[in-house]
């Protein structure tokens, strides 16, 4: 029922947009009709390697995201498990966490040039430091009772960590990963606008240069679609894996 309402509302909005554009109430240079955007997307797929550019962007996002996650999860767990590690790392992480990622673009170009490394670094920077704190926080919110139950059936500290604490925070972790993945796209587009010769950010920026507004919008819409599909897939995975909730 809610899904039906969601689809109906989206369709209505599109129709309204189309009508406004068709009635020439707006300048198509600023505000092209949805049909024009769809047409533009069609010929971009056919003639301008849009699919390949999208693929390049997706690959960048996932590479950086998996790199950040695979580092943040163990480090976050260590931070919550050992007070000394937490105390040592938290100020550093908090400091970097508050730096706006775009402010670090020049630095990343100085360090890594304009190749893939700079983009991966930027995305990693934007997600790792957030994620590591989310993991540490998730671990420390595991009810003490669970930990103590495990100890009183004879578990060793490592077993408590693996079989109980990690397992207890897993649903939260997957949720956090899903949200963080969304941020990756924001940083990716910034990175691709500043320095790239491929990817969706590059496509959008190039189209802008020639004032091809339908193409700009087509690029934006495609990012939205990729985000929506990924998010729904991850939500479905969450529901399936954590049916007990």
């Amino acid at each position, binding site marked *: 029922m809610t899904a039906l309402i969601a689809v109906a509302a989206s369709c209505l909005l599109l129709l309204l947009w189309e009508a406004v554009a068709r009635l020439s109430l707006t300048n198509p240079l600023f505000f092209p009709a949805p049909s024009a955007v769809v047409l533009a997307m069609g010929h971009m797929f056919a003639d301008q390697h849009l699919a390949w550019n999208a693929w390049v962007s997706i690959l960048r996002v996932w590479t950086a995201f998996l790199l950040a996650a695979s580092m943040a999860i163990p480090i976050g767990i260590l931070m919550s498990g050992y007070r000394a590690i937490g105390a040592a790392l938290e100020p550093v992480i908090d400091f970097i966490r508050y730096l706006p990622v775009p402010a670090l673009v020049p630095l990343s170009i100085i360090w890594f040039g304009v190749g893939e490394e700079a983009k991966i670094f930027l995305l990693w920077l934007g997600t790792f430091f957030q994620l590591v704190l989310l993991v540490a926080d998730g671990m420390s919110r595991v009810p003490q*009772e669970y930990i*103590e*139950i495990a100890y*009183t059936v*004879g*578990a060793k500290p490592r077993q408590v960590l693996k079989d109980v604490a990690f397992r207890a925070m897993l649903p939260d972790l997957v949720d956090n990963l899903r949200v963080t993945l969304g941020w990756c796209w924001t940083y990716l587009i910034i990175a691709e606008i500043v320095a790239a010769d491929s990817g969706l950010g590059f496509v959008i920026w190039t189209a802008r240069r020639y004032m091809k507004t339908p193409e700009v919008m087509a690029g934006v819409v495609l990012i939205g679609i990729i985000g929506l599909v990924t998010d729904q897939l991850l939500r479905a995975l969450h529901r399936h894996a954590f049916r*007990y909730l």
Partner: protein
Amino acid sequence: MTAHLTFLDVTKRFGAVEVLATPFNLSIARNEFMVFLGPSGCGKTTLMRMIGGLDTPTTGQILLDGVPAGRPDWRRGMVFQSYSSFPWLTVAENVAFGMRYRNDLSESEKLARCDHYLDLVGLYEFSDAYPNQVSGGMRQRVAIARTLAAGSGVLLMDEPFGALDAQRREQLQIELRRIQRRDAKTIVFVTHDVEEAVFLADRVIVFSKRPARVVAEIDVRSRLGENRTLEMRDGVEFFALRNEVLGLVRASAAEEP
């Protein structure tokens, strides 16, 4: 009768907070149902947790079968009031978790024990349900079955029925008492409910407000016998003893500022 658990001059402080100032001495016999009764936050829970090895005495010692009890292990099982079972495991998996780290049991033994204790607490048909799909009373049974399956000789129970409605509570009290007799378990049960304490206990220790001090020790078994039933609960003897203990609790609460 040999002492199963012994407190030897135990005191406890957390930083500047004195939980137990006067040295505490107590022997709990094998197969005894011991209830610690006292106001919330008085330190009775800490005493119980020290038996489980979850807290350590500041001074003094706790002996299990005559030997310092040490770190937590499966010989002393815990049943908490909330978060008493793991939500990601089914009812049967939760019960089996009690034996997960016991390498002295074979897989088939573990399976048989799991079935046995599920049956004992009346949860066999809910084996594949998740804790969130069953009632609060059933979740507490899961926790009890887990400690039984683990083979714990001592069950440490921290207000385990505190969140249940009156009827479920009564039912579980009767069942717990039955299981305790049947399987010869030593139970240390913490509560602030006088009626629950008197109904379940062989012996009740009444504690003052923090820092905990023993106000009274009541030998319930010699007054009410071993068999606890609903009829007994409606009887004159139970009522008289309940009032007596209630009087002690009130007097203790009134005598301090």
